Protein backbone atom coordinates (compact mmCIF):
# COMPACT_ATOMS: atom_id res chain seq x y z
CA UNK A 1 0.00 0.00 0.00
CA UNK A 2 1.34 3.37 -0.95
CA UNK A 3 2.04 5.53 2.08
CA UNK A 4 2.65 9.27 2.43
CA UNK A 5 3.24 11.85 5.15
CA UNK A 6 0.10 14.02 5.14
CA UNK A 7 0.94 17.72 5.18
CA UNK A 8 -2.03 19.79 6.35
CA UNK A 9 -0.80 23.37 5.91
CA UNK A 10 -2.84 26.22 7.43
CA UNK A 11 -5.99 27.11 5.49
CA UNK A 12 -7.30 23.54 5.37
CA UNK A 13 -7.23 22.68 9.09
CA UNK A 14 -8.20 26.19 10.28
CA UNK A 15 -10.72 27.32 7.63
CA UNK A 16 -11.94 24.31 5.65
CA UNK A 17 -11.52 21.18 7.78
CA UNK A 18 -13.97 19.42 5.44
CA UNK A 19 -11.13 19.28 2.92
CA UNK A 20 -9.04 17.44 5.52
CA UNK A 21 -11.86 14.99 6.32
CA UNK A 22 -12.60 14.36 2.63
CA UNK A 23 -8.94 13.79 1.75
CA UNK A 24 -8.55 11.26 4.57
CA UNK A 25 -11.69 9.37 3.43
CA UNK A 26 -10.89 9.45 -0.28
CA UNK A 27 -7.31 8.24 0.12
CA UNK A 28 -8.46 5.46 2.45
CA UNK A 29 -11.06 4.37 -0.10
CA UNK A 30 -8.38 4.31 -2.80
CA UNK A 31 -5.95 2.31 -0.69
CA UNK A 32 -3.38 5.05 -0.07
CA UNK A 33 -2.25 5.42 3.53
CA UNK A 34 -1.85 8.94 4.90
CA UNK A 35 0.33 9.22 8.00
CA UNK A 36 -0.04 12.47 9.95
CA UNK A 37 3.09 14.60 9.72
CA UNK A 38 3.09 15.48 13.40
CA UNK A 39 4.67 18.76 14.53
CA UNK A 40 4.71 20.21 10.99
CA UNK A 41 4.27 23.96 10.68
CA UNK A 42 3.18 26.34 7.93
CA UNK A 43 4.98 25.26 4.72
CA UNK A 44 5.82 28.35 4.99
CA UNK A 45 3.63 30.35 2.63
CA UNK A 46 5.65 31.15 -0.52
CA UNK A 47 4.03 34.47 -1.44
CA UNK A 48 4.46 36.03 1.98
CA UNK A 49 7.10 34.37 4.19
CA UNK A 50 9.44 33.66 1.25
CA UNK A 51 8.94 37.25 0.10
CA UNK A 52 9.95 38.56 3.51
CA UNK A 53 13.02 36.42 4.16
CA UNK A 54 14.11 33.60 1.91
CA UNK A 55 16.55 32.08 4.42
CA UNK A 56 13.73 31.70 6.96
CA UNK A 57 11.41 30.24 4.35
CA UNK A 58 14.03 27.66 3.39
CA UNK A 59 14.92 26.66 6.96
CA UNK A 60 11.29 26.28 8.05
CA UNK A 61 10.46 24.31 4.89
CA UNK A 62 13.54 22.13 5.48
CA UNK A 63 12.31 21.38 9.00
CA UNK A 64 9.03 20.10 7.52
CA UNK A 65 10.92 18.05 4.93
CA UNK A 66 13.22 16.64 7.64
CA UNK A 67 10.23 15.58 9.77
CA UNK A 68 8.92 13.53 6.85
CA UNK A 69 12.36 12.14 6.08
CA UNK A 70 12.59 10.92 9.68
CA UNK A 71 9.47 8.86 8.97
CA UNK A 72 11.01 7.64 5.70
CA UNK A 73 8.08 9.03 3.73
CA UNK A 74 7.39 11.37 0.83
CA UNK A 75 5.06 14.28 1.56
CA UNK A 76 1.61 14.70 0.05
CA UNK A 77 0.08 18.19 0.13
CA UNK A 78 -3.51 19.26 -0.52
CA UNK A 79 -2.63 22.86 -1.33
CA UNK A 80 -0.85 24.47 -4.28
CA UNK A 81 0.91 26.89 -1.92
CA UNK A 82 2.28 24.14 0.32
CA UNK A 83 3.19 22.11 -2.75
CA UNK A 84 4.98 25.02 -4.42
CA UNK A 85 6.77 25.97 -1.24
CA UNK A 86 7.98 22.53 -0.19
CA UNK A 87 8.73 21.39 -3.74
CA UNK A 88 10.78 24.52 -4.46
CA UNK A 89 12.58 24.25 -1.12
CA UNK A 90 13.50 20.61 -1.80
CA UNK A 91 14.72 21.66 -5.25
CA UNK A 92 16.87 24.51 -3.89
CA UNK A 93 18.39 22.22 -1.27
CA UNK A 94 19.02 19.53 -3.87
CA UNK A 95 20.78 21.74 -6.41
CA UNK A 96 23.30 23.40 -4.10
CA UNK A 97 25.26 21.39 -1.48
CA UNK A 98 26.40 24.63 0.18
CA UNK A 99 22.80 25.76 0.78
CA UNK A 100 21.89 22.28 2.05
CA UNK A 101 24.86 22.39 4.40
CA UNK A 102 23.91 25.82 5.76
CA UNK A 103 20.33 24.73 6.35
CA UNK A 104 21.42 21.51 8.02
CA UNK A 105 23.56 23.53 10.42
CA UNK A 106 20.37 25.26 11.55
CA UNK A 107 18.44 21.97 11.68
CA UNK A 108 21.19 20.34 13.75
CA UNK A 109 20.33 22.82 16.53
CA UNK A 110 16.97 21.06 16.85
CA UNK A 111 18.27 17.55 16.22
CA UNK A 112 17.06 17.23 12.63
CA UNK A 113 18.68 16.67 9.25
CA UNK A 114 17.43 16.73 5.68
CA UNK A 115 19.41 14.68 3.17
CA UNK A 116 17.16 15.13 0.15
CA UNK A 117 15.41 11.75 0.23
CA UNK A 118 11.91 13.01 0.93
CA UNK A 119 10.08 14.15 -2.19
CA UNK A 120 7.05 16.42 -2.32
CA UNK A 121 3.87 15.41 -4.14
CA UNK A 122 0.59 17.18 -4.87
CA UNK A 123 -2.46 15.10 -3.97
CA UNK A 124 -3.94 15.49 -7.47
CA UNK A 125 -0.67 14.26 -8.94
CA UNK A 126 -0.76 11.20 -6.67
CA UNK A 127 -4.38 10.54 -7.62
CA UNK A 128 -3.63 10.87 -11.32
CA UNK A 129 -0.26 9.17 -11.54
CA UNK A 130 -0.15 6.67 -8.70
CA UNK A 131 -3.79 5.71 -8.23
CA UNK A 132 -4.93 6.33 -11.79
CA UNK A 133 -8.20 7.34 -13.40
CA UNK A 134 -9.39 3.76 -13.93
CA UNK A 135 -9.12 2.81 -10.27
CA UNK A 136 -10.86 6.05 -9.28
CA UNK A 137 -13.74 5.30 -11.69
CA UNK A 138 -14.21 1.92 -10.01
CA UNK A 139 -14.45 3.60 -6.58
CA UNK A 140 -17.16 6.01 -7.72
CA UNK A 141 -20.57 5.05 -6.33
CA UNK A 142 -22.49 8.24 -7.02
CA UNK A 143 -21.41 9.96 -10.25
CA UNK A 144 -21.74 13.66 -9.57
CA UNK A 145 -22.83 14.99 -12.95
CA UNK A 146 -22.09 18.68 -12.38
CA UNK A 147 -21.02 20.98 -15.18
CA UNK A 148 -17.68 21.85 -13.69
CA UNK A 149 -15.17 24.62 -14.18
CA UNK A 150 -11.88 23.07 -13.09
CA UNK A 151 -9.41 25.52 -11.63
CA UNK A 152 -5.73 24.52 -11.58
CA UNK A 153 -4.33 27.57 -9.81
CA UNK A 154 -0.69 28.49 -10.30
CA UNK A 155 1.75 26.51 -8.20
CA UNK A 156 0.42 23.05 -9.05
CA UNK A 157 1.81 23.16 -12.60
CA UNK A 158 4.13 26.18 -12.66
CA UNK A 159 7.00 26.68 -13.06
CA UNK A 160 6.47 23.81 -15.51
CA UNK A 161 10.18 23.29 -16.12
CA UNK A 162 10.49 22.18 -12.51
CA UNK A 163 7.12 20.57 -11.92
CA UNK A 164 6.90 18.67 -15.26
CA UNK A 165 3.36 17.51 -14.58
CA UNK A 166 1.25 18.88 -17.40
CA UNK A 167 1.03 21.62 -20.04
CA UNK A 168 0.37 24.78 -18.00
CA UNK A 169 -1.43 26.45 -20.93
CA UNK A 170 -3.72 23.56 -21.75
CA UNK A 171 -3.67 21.11 -18.85
CA UNK A 172 -5.66 17.86 -18.68
CA UNK A 173 -4.98 16.22 -15.29
CA UNK A 174 -7.85 17.81 -13.36
CA UNK A 175 -10.24 17.53 -16.28
CA UNK A 176 -9.68 13.80 -16.39
CA UNK A 177 -9.92 13.45 -12.62
CA UNK A 178 -13.17 15.41 -12.43
CA UNK A 179 -14.64 13.31 -15.25
CA UNK A 180 -13.60 10.15 -13.41
CA UNK A 181 -15.89 11.35 -10.61
CA UNK A 182 -18.74 11.51 -13.12
CA UNK A 183 -18.75 15.30 -13.48
CA UNK A 184 -18.48 17.11 -16.78
CA UNK A 185 -15.31 19.16 -17.09
CA UNK A 186 -16.18 22.05 -19.33
CA UNK A 187 -13.87 22.81 -22.19
CA UNK A 188 -12.95 26.39 -21.48
CA UNK A 189 -10.17 28.92 -21.62
CA UNK A 190 -8.51 30.21 -18.49
CA UNK A 191 -8.39 26.93 -16.55
CA UNK A 192 -4.90 27.81 -15.34
CA UNK A 193 -5.44 31.49 -14.60
CA UNK A 194 -4.48 32.99 -11.26
CA UNK A 195 -7.24 33.43 -8.65
CA UNK A 196 -5.58 36.64 -7.42
CA UNK A 197 -4.95 35.65 -3.81
CA UNK A 198 -1.26 34.74 -3.96
CA UNK A 199 1.91 36.71 -3.40
CA UNK A 200 0.45 38.57 -0.43
CA UNK A 201 -2.24 40.26 -2.54
CA UNK A 202 -5.24 38.93 -0.65
CA UNK A 203 -3.96 40.38 2.63
CA UNK A 204 -2.54 43.66 1.34
CA UNK A 205 -4.40 44.45 -1.90
CA UNK A 206 -7.67 42.60 -1.45
CA UNK A 207 -9.51 44.71 -4.01
CA UNK A 208 -6.94 43.91 -6.67
CA UNK A 209 -7.15 40.21 -5.84
CA UNK A 210 -10.93 40.47 -6.33
CA UNK A 211 -10.42 41.80 -9.88
CA UNK A 212 -8.59 38.58 -10.79
CA UNK A 213 -11.33 36.54 -9.15
CA UNK A 214 -14.10 38.46 -10.91
CA UNK A 215 -12.50 37.92 -14.32
CA UNK A 216 -12.36 34.18 -13.61
CA UNK A 217 -15.96 34.04 -12.38
CA UNK A 218 -17.27 35.98 -15.37
CA UNK A 219 -15.65 33.49 -17.72
CA UNK A 220 -16.94 30.49 -15.80
CA UNK A 221 -20.46 31.86 -15.63
CA UNK A 222 -20.49 32.79 -19.34
CA UNK A 223 -19.44 29.22 -20.14
CA UNK A 224 -22.37 27.90 -18.11
CA UNK A 225 -20.49 26.40 -15.16
CA UNK A 226 -22.53 24.98 -12.27
CA UNK A 227 -19.58 24.43 -9.96
CA UNK A 228 -15.92 25.31 -9.43
CA UNK A 229 -13.52 22.53 -8.50
CA UNK A 230 -10.11 23.58 -7.20
CA UNK A 231 -7.02 21.82 -5.82
CA UNK A 232 -5.83 24.59 -3.52
CA UNK A 233 -7.45 25.85 -0.30
CA UNK A 234 -6.17 29.37 -0.99
CA UNK A 235 -7.89 29.52 -4.42
CA UNK A 236 -10.82 27.84 -2.64
CA UNK A 237 -10.94 30.58 0.00
CA UNK A 238 -10.60 33.31 -2.60
CA UNK A 239 -13.49 31.99 -4.72
CA UNK A 240 -15.65 31.01 -1.76
CA UNK A 241 -15.26 34.20 0.25
CA UNK A 242 -15.49 36.76 -2.56
CA UNK A 243 -18.53 35.69 -4.55
CA UNK A 244 -21.20 37.29 -2.38
CA UNK A 245 -19.61 40.70 -2.77
CA UNK A 246 -19.03 40.14 -6.49
CA UNK A 247 -22.61 38.99 -7.08
CA UNK A 248 -21.89 35.37 -8.03
CA UNK A 249 -23.09 32.13 -6.48
CA UNK A 250 -21.08 29.27 -7.96
CA UNK A 251 -20.53 26.51 -5.40
CA UNK A 252 -16.83 25.85 -4.76
CA UNK A 253 -15.51 22.37 -4.02
CA UNK A 254 -11.99 21.17 -3.42
CA UNK A 255 -11.31 18.10 -5.57
CA UNK A 256 -11.18 15.96 -2.42
CA UNK A 257 -14.74 17.04 -1.58
CA UNK A 258 -16.00 16.25 -5.11
CA UNK A 259 -14.38 12.82 -4.82
CA UNK A 260 -15.87 12.43 -1.35
CA UNK A 261 -19.35 12.99 -2.80
CA UNK A 262 -18.69 10.64 -5.70
CA UNK A 263 -17.34 7.92 -3.40
CA UNK A 264 -20.41 8.04 -1.19
CA UNK A 265 -19.32 10.16 1.78
CA UNK A 266 -22.12 11.63 3.90
CA UNK A 267 -22.79 15.27 3.00
CA UNK A 268 -22.28 16.26 6.69
CA UNK A 269 -18.72 14.94 6.55
CA UNK A 270 -17.71 17.29 3.75
CA UNK A 271 -17.64 20.32 6.07
CA UNK A 272 -19.75 22.36 3.69
CA UNK A 273 -21.13 24.54 6.49
CA UNK A 274 -17.71 26.24 6.58
CA UNK A 275 -18.32 27.45 3.02
CA UNK A 276 -19.47 31.05 2.63
CA UNK A 277 -20.93 30.53 -0.85
CA UNK A 278 -23.63 27.91 -0.20
CA UNK A 279 -23.16 24.45 -1.68
CA UNK A 280 -26.42 22.61 -2.31
CA UNK A 281 -25.88 19.05 -3.42
Amino acid at each position, binding site marked *: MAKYAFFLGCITPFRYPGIERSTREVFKTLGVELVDLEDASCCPAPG*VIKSFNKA*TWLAVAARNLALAEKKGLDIVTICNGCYGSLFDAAHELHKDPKILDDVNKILSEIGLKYSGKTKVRHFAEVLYKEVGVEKIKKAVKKPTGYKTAVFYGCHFLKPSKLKQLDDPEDPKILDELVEAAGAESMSRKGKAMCCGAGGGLRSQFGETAMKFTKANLERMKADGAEMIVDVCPFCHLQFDASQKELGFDLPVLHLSQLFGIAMGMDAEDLGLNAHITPVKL
Partner: protein
Amino acid sequence: MIKPVPEFAEELAANGGSSAMLCFQCGTCTLKCPSAKYTSLRTAHIMRASQLGLKDEAIDGDSLWQCTTCYTCVEWCPRNVQVVDVITALRNIAVADGMLHESHRKVAQSLVKFGHTVENNEKIKALRKELRLPENPPTVMNNTAAKADLDKILNLTGFDKLVK
Protein backbone atom coordinates in the same frame (compact mmCIF):
# COMPACT_ATOMS: atom_id res chain seq x y z
CA MET B 1 17.42 62.75 -9.24
CA ILE B 2 17.52 58.96 -9.56
CA LYS B 3 20.89 57.64 -8.47
CA PRO B 4 22.21 54.19 -9.31
CA VAL B 5 23.57 52.06 -6.48
CA PRO B 6 26.73 50.35 -7.84
CA GLU B 7 26.67 47.48 -5.29
CA PHE B 8 23.05 46.66 -6.05
CA ALA B 9 23.88 43.88 -8.55
CA GLU B 10 25.74 42.04 -5.80
CA GLU B 11 22.96 42.53 -3.28
CA LEU B 12 20.43 41.25 -5.79
CA ALA B 13 22.58 38.23 -6.63
CA ALA B 14 23.10 37.42 -2.96
CA ASN B 15 19.31 37.29 -2.63
CA GLY B 16 18.87 34.98 -5.62
CA GLY B 17 17.93 37.57 -8.24
CA SER B 18 20.93 37.53 -10.59
CA SER B 19 18.93 36.27 -13.58
CA ALA B 20 17.52 39.81 -14.00
CA MET B 21 20.77 40.56 -15.83
CA LEU B 22 19.69 38.27 -18.71
CA CYS B 23 16.64 40.41 -19.55
CA PHE B 24 16.71 42.04 -22.99
CA GLN B 25 13.55 44.06 -22.48
CA CYS B 26 11.22 42.31 -24.92
CA GLY B 27 8.33 43.03 -22.54
CA THR B 28 6.74 39.58 -22.83
CA CYS B 29 6.53 39.27 -19.04
CA THR B 30 4.52 42.47 -18.75
CA LEU B 31 2.29 41.52 -21.68
CA LYS B 32 1.48 38.15 -20.08
CA CYS B 33 1.26 39.43 -16.49
CA PRO B 34 -2.32 39.19 -15.17
CA SER B 35 -1.58 41.77 -12.50
CA ALA B 36 -0.45 44.35 -15.07
CA LYS B 37 -4.06 44.51 -16.30
CA TYR B 38 -5.14 45.89 -12.94
CA THR B 39 -2.11 47.39 -11.25
CA SER B 40 1.01 49.49 -11.70
CA LEU B 41 3.21 46.35 -11.78
CA ARG B 42 5.48 46.38 -14.84
CA THR B 43 7.82 43.43 -14.49
CA ALA B 44 10.02 44.44 -17.44
CA HIS B 45 10.52 47.85 -15.86
CA ILE B 46 11.52 46.21 -12.57
CA MET B 47 14.02 43.98 -14.41
CA ARG B 48 15.57 47.03 -16.16
CA ALA B 49 15.80 49.04 -12.95
CA SER B 50 17.49 46.04 -11.33
CA GLN B 51 20.06 45.81 -14.12
CA LEU B 52 20.87 49.51 -13.86
CA GLY B 53 21.30 49.45 -10.09
CA LEU B 54 18.30 51.74 -9.64
CA LYS B 55 17.46 50.26 -6.29
CA ASP B 56 14.77 52.72 -5.22
CA GLU B 57 13.08 52.44 -8.59
CA ALA B 58 13.03 48.65 -8.21
CA ILE B 59 11.85 48.35 -4.63
CA ASP B 60 9.84 51.46 -3.77
CA GLY B 61 6.09 51.75 -3.99
CA ASP B 62 3.30 49.24 -4.35
CA SER B 63 4.25 47.72 -7.72
CA LEU B 64 6.68 45.18 -6.31
CA TRP B 65 3.99 43.83 -3.99
CA GLN B 66 1.35 43.45 -6.68
CA CYS B 67 2.83 40.24 -8.09
CA THR B 68 0.82 37.12 -7.19
CA THR B 69 3.81 34.87 -8.05
CA CYS B 70 1.70 33.10 -10.68
CA TYR B 71 4.83 32.29 -12.76
CA THR B 72 3.18 33.13 -16.10
CA CYS B 73 6.13 35.44 -16.87
CA VAL B 74 8.60 32.67 -16.08
CA GLU B 75 6.76 30.32 -18.45
CA TRP B 76 7.01 32.84 -21.32
CA CYS B 77 10.38 34.53 -20.78
CA PRO B 78 12.59 33.83 -23.83
CA ARG B 79 15.73 34.61 -21.78
CA ASN B 80 14.94 32.24 -18.92
CA VAL B 81 14.87 35.10 -16.42
CA GLN B 82 13.52 33.74 -13.16
CA VAL B 83 11.25 36.75 -12.79
CA VAL B 84 9.53 35.51 -9.63
CA ASP B 85 12.92 34.84 -8.00
CA VAL B 86 14.00 38.39 -8.89
CA ILE B 87 10.81 39.83 -7.41
CA THR B 88 11.26 37.67 -4.30
CA ALA B 89 14.86 38.89 -3.97
CA LEU B 90 13.76 42.53 -4.30
CA ARG B 91 11.02 42.00 -1.72
CA ASN B 92 13.57 40.48 0.67
CA ILE B 93 15.79 43.53 0.16
CA ALA B 94 12.86 45.89 0.72
CA VAL B 95 11.84 44.10 3.93
CA ALA B 96 15.44 44.15 5.20
CA ASP B 97 15.30 47.92 4.61
CA GLY B 98 12.23 48.10 6.84
CA MET B 99 9.55 48.16 4.16
CA LEU B 100 6.95 45.69 5.36
CA HIS B 101 3.22 46.32 4.96
CA GLU B 102 1.32 46.07 8.25
CA SER B 103 -1.04 43.38 6.90
CA HIS B 104 1.99 41.33 5.91
CA ARG B 105 3.62 41.90 9.29
CA LYS B 106 0.50 40.38 10.88
CA VAL B 107 0.76 37.26 8.69
CA ALA B 108 4.46 36.96 9.60
CA GLN B 109 3.73 37.42 13.29
CA SER B 110 1.12 34.70 13.11
CA LEU B 111 3.83 32.29 11.95
CA VAL B 112 5.99 33.36 14.90
CA LYS B 113 3.13 33.03 17.37
CA PHE B 114 1.35 29.86 16.20
CA GLY B 115 3.64 28.23 13.67
CA HIS B 116 0.85 28.77 11.13
CA THR B 117 -0.17 31.77 9.05
CA VAL B 118 -3.84 31.15 9.91
CA GLU B 119 -5.16 30.77 13.46
CA ASN B 120 -7.62 28.26 14.80
CA ASN B 121 -10.86 29.58 16.36
CA GLU B 122 -13.83 28.31 18.35
CA LYS B 123 -16.12 27.93 15.34
CA ILE B 124 -13.54 25.85 13.50
CA LYS B 125 -12.80 23.76 16.60
CA ALA B 126 -16.51 22.88 16.84
CA LEU B 127 -16.64 22.01 13.15
CA ARG B 128 -13.50 19.87 13.41
CA LYS B 129 -15.14 17.98 16.25
CA GLU B 130 -18.29 17.43 14.17
CA LEU B 131 -16.05 16.02 11.46
CA ARG B 132 -14.43 13.62 13.97
CA LEU B 133 -11.13 15.50 13.72
CA PRO B 134 -9.20 16.62 16.80
CA GLU B 135 -10.03 20.24 17.76
CA ASN B 136 -6.40 21.12 17.13
CA PRO B 137 -4.57 19.30 14.34
CA PRO B 138 -1.44 17.35 15.39
CA THR B 139 0.85 20.11 14.15
CA VAL B 140 3.42 22.42 15.74
CA MET B 141 0.64 24.51 17.31
CA ASN B 142 -0.36 21.55 19.45
CA ASN B 143 3.06 20.57 20.79
CA THR B 144 5.11 23.01 22.87
CA ALA B 145 8.41 21.15 22.31
CA ALA B 146 7.94 21.26 18.54
CA LYS B 147 6.95 24.93 18.76
CA ALA B 148 10.15 25.62 20.73
CA ASP B 149 12.12 24.02 17.86
CA LEU B 150 10.38 26.25 15.34
CA ASP B 151 10.98 29.29 17.56
CA LYS B 152 14.67 28.42 17.58
CA ILE B 153 14.80 28.41 13.77
CA LEU B 154 12.94 31.73 13.56
CA ASN B 155 15.40 33.14 16.07
CA LEU B 156 18.51 31.78 14.33
CA THR B 157 17.45 33.31 11.00
CA GLY B 158 16.48 36.56 12.74
CA PHE B 159 12.89 36.35 11.51
CA ASP B 160 11.36 37.01 14.92
CA LYS B 161 13.14 40.38 15.11
CA LEU B 162 12.66 41.19 11.42
CA VAL B 163 8.87 41.10 11.66
CA LYS B 164 8.43 42.41 15.22
